[in-house]
């Protein structure tokens, strides 16, 4: 039954579990179920059962057909953010037990300098469970004090008695020599085989202890929950007849076999949102565009990331909630802006929308339970979204409730409900636009040269207006926008990142040492891929080095040529660094020497070929798809706006704004200044008039 083979992408979010199934003909079908927070694999299997039913198969037959299942999950992020991680302890270098708590004196990033009325830092591992042991490694890698093994064994015995579930082993300079950490971890496993153990040098082999220790602590904290979930999920999938490959979506935008993820919990942070940019890159590729900004506007948050010259931007400087994470992650900026974002009047009498969200409960006023106005209520009052076709008609929206909710703040603003809704709508758009501008400036790009790719339930409603505000000429809205992350997983490369600290000036760098470190990482990569059954020739390797001018503190990741490393290649890298520096920060200093801090290797294998289904061609005139007309507000004018049925549009249709297209999972709003063209895959391409 080769022809029945299917591929499935599953994104388990906070509220919904999204599922996309691609059958042998290449058609994508989407399914959504409520997420089950207690055991997310329940909701996941519910969704798969829905899918099976749709294909008129029983779950065993359906799952037997699935050759590849790619899975993104919010589990690690949620475990961290809701504080429901393992009872975690730390074994660290004696005299340095407070690195996590002092945390370089950094206050929460979103708190104003002028506000001291905040609770103190509560580290994931409290002080009573952070224990120092006799040991010391120097920055040269030399061990100046050997590990006191007896002491470690005693501590672990104590941890075991007090019900510790995870241990982070974090020693100074372990990036230069991991011997002591490894030995301590072995003792942990000998004394307490049931406790989850991680070490800092295996989490991320890079210097700077606060960043490394904190990442390791987060890994230990979310690790047991992630491991339990993954092991359980694998078994349940197997029981349901699944014999294919299960790949997990990682923070760095690559996918990895599940058995490689069980003990690397921290890499599952942002799994899900990290898939979106790959989807955007794929869609951009259809139009031949390589400079893209991908946005995903959901119920509570807005995520944005940049793709420059086809390359998805990553960073090692992320914060997730109040935790610093130093592994390489997709460079996502997140803002508290979504359909559920709540509007209020602040201490200066100004309108404030978000970051608080009405979330799923009570939800926007128009869901019938809440009274506070949200962005979705504004969308409804302005006529952008239908009250009778939300989630394809599964849910009826209450216009009266939405109107009433506006009144609570329109009085304070001294305007009517329409102007209030318009202000909420504009305000959330500028919040998102500022976020986009901030990330593009940080990266040294002019946003007007980028194509906006919009996903999430709210993205298609707001994207046209965002683009108008930012002077972005082109917007792509895929028909699967509401399941954007799941869609991105189809477009994902298989791969892993590797890193080694190597600190030297370009002039005096030892070519052989560097070459050996790359070789070491490359053989690790080959080994990992061999497990996946990927042969050497199908692996793409990309070497980079983090460089800076001598004396600077922050590095810029710069590409290095593959093959036999030579002085010439290294110097070419340094020149490329100078160019990048100029582009990013308005100046460069070619007269200054360059040094290397970290060597990196990205190993990836191409995804299997993947095509979006095609739709029928039609005329330019879209009137055959016209569903109705509805009053909606554009730029303060109340206009009778044509509403098109997403199920009936044809390739080649040209829809001038203002107009609305109703899809079952989202609504596309085309502002007056844009015209929408429907392409052969039913992507909506908005172009500025």
């Amino acid at each position, binding site marked *: 039954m080769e022809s029945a083979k299917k591929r499935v992408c599953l994104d388990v979010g906070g509220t919904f579990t999204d599922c996309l199934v691609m059958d042998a003909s290449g058609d994508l079908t989407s399914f959504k179920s409520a997420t089950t927070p207690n055991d997310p694999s329940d909701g996941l299997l519910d969704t798969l059962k829905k899918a099976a039913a749709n294909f008129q198969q029983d779950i065993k037959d359906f799952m037997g057909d699935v050759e590849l299942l790619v899975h993104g999950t919010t589990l690690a992020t949620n475990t961290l953010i809701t504080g429901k991680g393992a009872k975690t302890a730390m074994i660290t270098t004696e005299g340095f037990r407070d*690195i996590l708590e002092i945390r370089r004196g950094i206050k929460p990033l979103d708190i104003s300098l002028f506000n001291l009325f905040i609770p103190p830092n509560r580290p994931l591992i409290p002080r009573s469970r952070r224990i120092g042991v006799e040991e010391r490694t120097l920055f040269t890698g030399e061990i100046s004090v050997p590990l006191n093994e007896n002491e470690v064994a005693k501590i672990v015995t104590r941890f075991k008695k007090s019900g510790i579930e995870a241990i982070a082993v974090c020693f100074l300079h372990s990036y230069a020599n991991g011997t002591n950490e490894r030995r301590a971890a072995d003792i942990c496993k000998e004394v307490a085989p049931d406790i989850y153990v991680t070490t800092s040098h295996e989490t991320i082999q890079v210097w700077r202890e606060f960043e490394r220790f904190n990442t390791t602590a987060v890994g230990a904290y979310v690790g047991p929950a992630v491991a339990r979930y993954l092991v359980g999920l694998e078994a349940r999938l197997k029981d349901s007849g699944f014999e294919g490959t299960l790949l997990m979506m990682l923070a760095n935008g690559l996918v990895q076999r599940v058995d490689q993820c069980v003990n690397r919990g921290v890499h599952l942070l942002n799994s899900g949102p990290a898939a979106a940019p790959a989807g955007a890159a794929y869609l951009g590729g259809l139009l031949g565009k390589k400079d893209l900004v991908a946005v995903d506007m959901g119920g509570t948050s807005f995520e944005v990331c940049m793709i420059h010259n086809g390359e998805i931007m990553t960073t090692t400087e992320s914060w997730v909630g109040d935790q610093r994470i130093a592994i390489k992650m997709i460079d996502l900026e997140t803002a508290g802006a979504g359909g559920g974002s709540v509007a209020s009047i602040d201490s200066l009498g100004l309108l404030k929308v978000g970051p608080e969200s009405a979330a799923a409960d009570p939800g926007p006023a128009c869901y019938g339970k809440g009274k506070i106005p949200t962005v979705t209520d504004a969308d409804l009052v302005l006529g952008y979204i239908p009250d009778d076709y939300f989630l394809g008609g599964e849910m009826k929206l209450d216009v009266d409730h939405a109107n009433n909710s506006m009144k609570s703040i329109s009085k304070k603003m001294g305007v009517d409900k329409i102007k209030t809704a318009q202000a909420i709508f504009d305000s959330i758009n500028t919040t998102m636009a500022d976020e986009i501008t*901030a990330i593009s*400036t940080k990266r040294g790009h002019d946003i007007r040269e980028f194509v906006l790719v919009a996903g999430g339930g709210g993205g298609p409603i707001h994207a046209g207006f965002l683009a108008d505000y930012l002077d972005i000429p082109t917007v792509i809205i895929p028909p699967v926008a509401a399941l954007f992350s799941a869609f991105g997983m189809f477009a994902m490369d298989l791969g892993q990142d590797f890193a080694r600290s190597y600190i030297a000036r370009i002039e005096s760098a030892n070519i052989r040492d560097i070459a050996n470190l790359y070789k070491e990482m490359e053989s690790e990569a080959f080994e990992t891929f061999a497990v996946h059954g990927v042969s050497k020739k199908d692996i793409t390797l990309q070497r980079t080095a983090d460089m800076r001018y001598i004396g600077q*503190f922050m590095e810029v990741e710069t590409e290095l040529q593959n093959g036999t490393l030579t002085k010439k290649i290294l110097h070419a890298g340094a020149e490329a660094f100078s160019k990048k520096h100029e582009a990013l920060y308005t100046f460069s200093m070619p007269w200054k020497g360059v040094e290397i801090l970290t060597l990196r290797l990205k190993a990836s294998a191409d995804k299997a070929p993947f095509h979006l289904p095609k739709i029928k061609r039609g005329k330019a005139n879209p009137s055959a798809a016209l569903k109705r007309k509805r009053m909606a507000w554009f730029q303060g004018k109340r206009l009778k706006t044509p509403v098109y049925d997403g199920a009936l549009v044809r390739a080649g249709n040209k829809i001038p704004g203002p107009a609305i297209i109703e899809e079952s999972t989202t609504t596309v709003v085309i502002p007056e200044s844009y015209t929408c063209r429907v392409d052969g895959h039913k992507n909506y391409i908005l172009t500025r008039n």
Partner: protein
Amino acid sequence: MGKVNVDATTIATVWHGMQTICKEMRYIVDRTAQNYLIAQLHDVSVGIWGADGSTIAVPVGLPVQFLGTQFAVQDLIKKFGDDIKPGDLFLTNDPYHGGHNCHLPDWGFFRPIFYEDELLFFTLCRAHQQDTGGAFPGGYFPDGYDIHAEGICIPPVKVHEEGVEQTSILELIWNNVRWPEGTKIDNYAMIGATKMSEKRIIGLLDRYGKDTVMSCVDEMLKRTERAVRKEIRKIPDGTYHGAAATDDDGSVLDVPVWVRVAVTVKGEKMTLDFDGSDPQQKGFINSVYATTYANAIAAVVLCLDPALADYHNQGTMEPITVRTPEESVVNCVYPATTGASPVNVGVQVMEAVLEACSKARPDRSVASWGKHRGDYVFAVDPRTGERYVRTSFDYDGGAGAVWGYDGYQGVSCLTAMGAVNRGDVEEMEARLPWHLIKYEMVTDFTGNGRWRGGPGVHWEALNEGTDGQVSTGSSDGDEVMGFGAVGGGASPQSRTYLVRNGEKIRLKPHRRVVIKNGDIMLKHSSGGGGVGDPAKRDPHMVQEDVENELVSIKEAKSVYKVAINPNTLEVDMAKTKKLRANIRKKNKTKKRSAA
């Protein structure tokens, strides 16, 4: 300027845009500077001012570096008048001669921002340089003869004229500092930030139009002012006193120097009168008016409604008057030395105002923070043969408590208000010939209270470099303790020692001595002051502190009146009730006898 009516959404948008620009300015400096203090520890301030000097956006920085900058902008306009042109760039570090700067290491680049040939804004990037010349490296050494001994004094000068770098002026300046090449990198980083700011502000003007943007700014200042006046009105009319001292001035040793303030609230106005503060000193702790002003305003701001925290600007300052006696330690005149003033007496200015404000609004009490334990070591790194200066905030204690919360851990130096960061141990060991022995929080070493100060810190490191010198510069708090508020305990005394051949040599603040290879530097930096009666602290919070070894069982009992079972570490509720009842009885008797 055309007046247009602007709606609340546009105001908020323009406002947010300007805040974002400032944050991006610091980001550029972070990414590109080479000086540890600037790039890693954030000893840098950025902001936007109006063409008349009014403070518009100051979200990231240190109060001393930018809350008094209106005076510098006003004098810049006075000095250069019509000679300010697009593409110009000014540099100054001078506390006097129109620079209104706190001390010489903090260099500030000012860029005027024009739109359609009209001067609308100034943007500033000010940062602490690695060196600024003078008798010793680093700029934080006591007992200089006068301000010229402390370094090169740069009055406001043009270093770019209409976009053209005035290289000879910059070279003259750079030639007068140690590490000119590093300073050059940092200066370019700072200039890059001002350039970005200009580009982005012009983008804002293009998008909304000049009249709208200017009206939004105007409206923001007005709204903030109204809100702050309302806050002041909530304070009962009256005069509230505060006082604080630094251990000495670094020249006349072991004689504390006092800052005193009377905060008078009348209706919606507040006057901070520093009359009674000590006269200008020979030592390096003298503060110019703009510095005192900046610290005093910052202290008041901390005691206002935290919901206003994101909005402070010129409007905040309008209802507040800061008076200082001429030729005093809080308003010194040329050629007084000012090297340590951002910290001492900067901290004392803030402490005195906070003490007074905590009396005025106990529910907004802010206790003093652990004092800065900073030093400058200058010696040679034997690994490279290069000279180095080591300084940081790593060895400071923690913040003071506020009403409702314990002090934040690890944030350092009250006048930096947590804007500066600490380094990583690994980075320090790789960069400098110092080996860390211990870097941990300490038991029973912070101000107690219903809310206690952030914990004190033990910092200990071995000098593996050459012999050299150490200046304990702006360290403070060996003698004079920081205040606790509303019955909270004071921030305890701190200590620094050099351990040489096993012998502990006490090293007081504001001194300069020889340091030898093999010496261990040992610092005990206390945590901040407490807020409220410690006997009213939640017993479970005390228990948690005992578990975490931040409070001993002994102190739990003697100070917090909480009995902890030493075997189980549980609270003995019956005993605790008894302990606490006893004090209530004692207090009652005390009150009665006082009556």
